[in-house]
């Protein structure tokens, strides 16, 4: 897990660029770039959490969007009911410090149940079953007319963070960026820990791990739950960013895109997920500007990436 000098340089440069994004956006007269930057940070958090599963533990989940969506809806639904609650709950239900942890815990708790089921299978069945369960949550939110059904749920104002004006997009960008940095540092720490070493071993050779006396299941489940919780945080940020949660966030295409981000960035490389996410977000924005049918370009790009560029962006940076 040692970064090469070139990789460290690119990392520092990227974070410096991100930190300066609001000024750059102001200078070129494109304030919308700030929102794009926030979106990239949020998706990077989600992709990095998925990389913990796919890249580190060797569990290719095709249902990660479910946790993103559940995190978003947790924030949205609590805010929706805030006015019906008596004090002090009505205040708490819109406070970031109270609601965001719940947006982590709710997906994590559900992931404990769903994960326990999915981990009874492996390989291709695991891909199919994670996809199917995520799609189950998608249908659930489409059917919940109280929360907007397939029209989605609007968040009237962002979760309250002391000292930050709810309408201040630049301040919110820095919130997202801080969250991203903290998540990446946490995940890097976990990767190097005893727990992370075990996950690595499970990915490389599960049979060997069992023959040295390790039962893989609890570790896989823990990784599943942890990654769902972090994706839930990304969901909480996402709903705040756009003040809107919709079932699209749980749709299977979102799960697919998250997988693409991880692989595009470089499977198992942690930092790579960030670059993969940023690349996808920017690609979306650029292609969507150019043609309404941007997916007709994105599809072949995906195929080409899989067939030709296996090591991803981060691996390409590493040289070797």
């Amino acid at each position, binding site marked *: 897990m040692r970064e090469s000098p070139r990789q460290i340089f690119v990392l520092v440069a990227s974070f410096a660029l991100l930190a300066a994004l609001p000024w750059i956006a102001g200078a070129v007269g494109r304030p919308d770039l700030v929102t794009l930057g926030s979106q990239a940070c949020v998706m990077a958090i989600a992709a990095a959490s998925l990389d913990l599963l796919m890249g580190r533990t060797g569990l290719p989940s095709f249902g990660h969007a479910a946790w993103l969506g559940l995190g978003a809806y947790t924030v949205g639904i609590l805010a929706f009911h805030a006015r019906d609650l008596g004090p002090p709950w009505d205040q708490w239900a819109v406070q970031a410090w109270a609601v965001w942890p719940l947006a982590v815990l709710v997906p994590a708790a559900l992931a404990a149940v769903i994960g326990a089921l999915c981990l*009874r299978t492996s390989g291709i*069945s695991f891909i*199919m079953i994670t996809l199917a369960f995520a799609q*189950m949550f998608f249908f659930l939110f489409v059917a919940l007319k109280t929360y907007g059904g397939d029209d989605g749920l609007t968040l009237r104002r962002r979760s309250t963070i002391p000292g930050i004006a709810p309408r201040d997009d630049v301040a919110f960008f820095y919130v997202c960026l801080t969250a991203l940095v903290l998540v990446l540092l946490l995940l890097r720490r976990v990767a190097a820990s005893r727990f992370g070493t075990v996950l690595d071993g499970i990915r490389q050779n599960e049979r060997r791990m069992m023959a040295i006396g390790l039962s893989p299941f609890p570790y896989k489940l823990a990784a599943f739950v942890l990654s769902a919780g972090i994706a839930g945080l990304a969901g909480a940020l996402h709903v705040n960013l756009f003040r809107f949660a919709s079932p699209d966030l749980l749709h299977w295409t979102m799960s697919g895109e998250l*997988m*693409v981000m991880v692989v595009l960035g470089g499977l198992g490389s942690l930092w790579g997920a960030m670059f993969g996410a940023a690349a996808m977000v920017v690609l979306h924005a650029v292609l969507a500007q150019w043609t309404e049918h*941007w997916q007709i370009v*994105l599809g072949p790009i995906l195929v080409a990436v*899989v067939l030709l560029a296996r090591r991803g962006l981060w691996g390409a940076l590493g040289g070797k």
Partner: protein
Amino acid sequence: MTLLLEQLLNGLQFGVMLFLMAAGLTLVFGIMGLINLAHGSLYMIGAYAAAWATLQTGSFVLGLLAGLSAAAVLGMALEAVILRRLYARDHLDQVLATFGVILFCNEAVAMIFGRQPLMAGPPPWLSGAVEIVPGVPYPVYRLAIIATGLLVAAGLYVLISRTRIGMLVRAGATHRELVGALGVRIGLLYTAVFGLGALLAGLAGALTGPLLAVQVGMGERILITTFVVIVIGGLGSIRGALAGAMLVGMVDTLTRGFLPATLRAVLPASEADALGAGLSSMAVFILMAIVLLWRPRGLFPAHA
């Protein structure tokens, strides 16, 4: 009672459709070890080609032929150009590349046919209803679908149990063993198997078209239900695909048919309908969870 019979037949009809889809997917997986997400796109292509040709020519039969050949030809082209390179890759690569194919197909179809659904009803000679038992009319077209599906199932059964290739497949032959038995024309065999799977998907699409709106996104809806079928039935097993398809078809249709009405007994009508719809679309996933708890490898695991 009448309603129940009707819903059972609807469930059978949906199950037959799911079987056509699942059979192709599981056959391709069993022989080539490939998981093809774009299987749903072939279904969509079959449906579009059939609906479009029917509307152009006014002939259902020509439409059906167009749907079948479009799906089979495009399927084999897809295999030859892209998927062939994925056989030796891991499942993750297969999933991602075929995910890209889906995005492309959906957008291409939207550009050619627009976002408005195509509607082409069943032909006059298959319209109307017959009384299956006195007092219970049932649409002829749906009966025709059921008959076609059962015929295909029988055909597949013969193919798998009577031919040499079928035997090898049933025995869970590896790539090398297949090469040994069939010589170097293995690439041709793979393309043919893939074409057969595509043909079945196209058949499912072309037959379903007249029952619902032909639109972009229809492929993924049925694809995910097909995954549920395969997980329940057991990966790589045609018998499992049949059992899983019937089970899922029935459960889905019956919950959709009866759950909202049951809920109305305890809830206000509008809420009951919404909740009932939501719960019934979750029903097959819950079924899958139960089966997995009981049998992690599905009902009929291949080569157990």
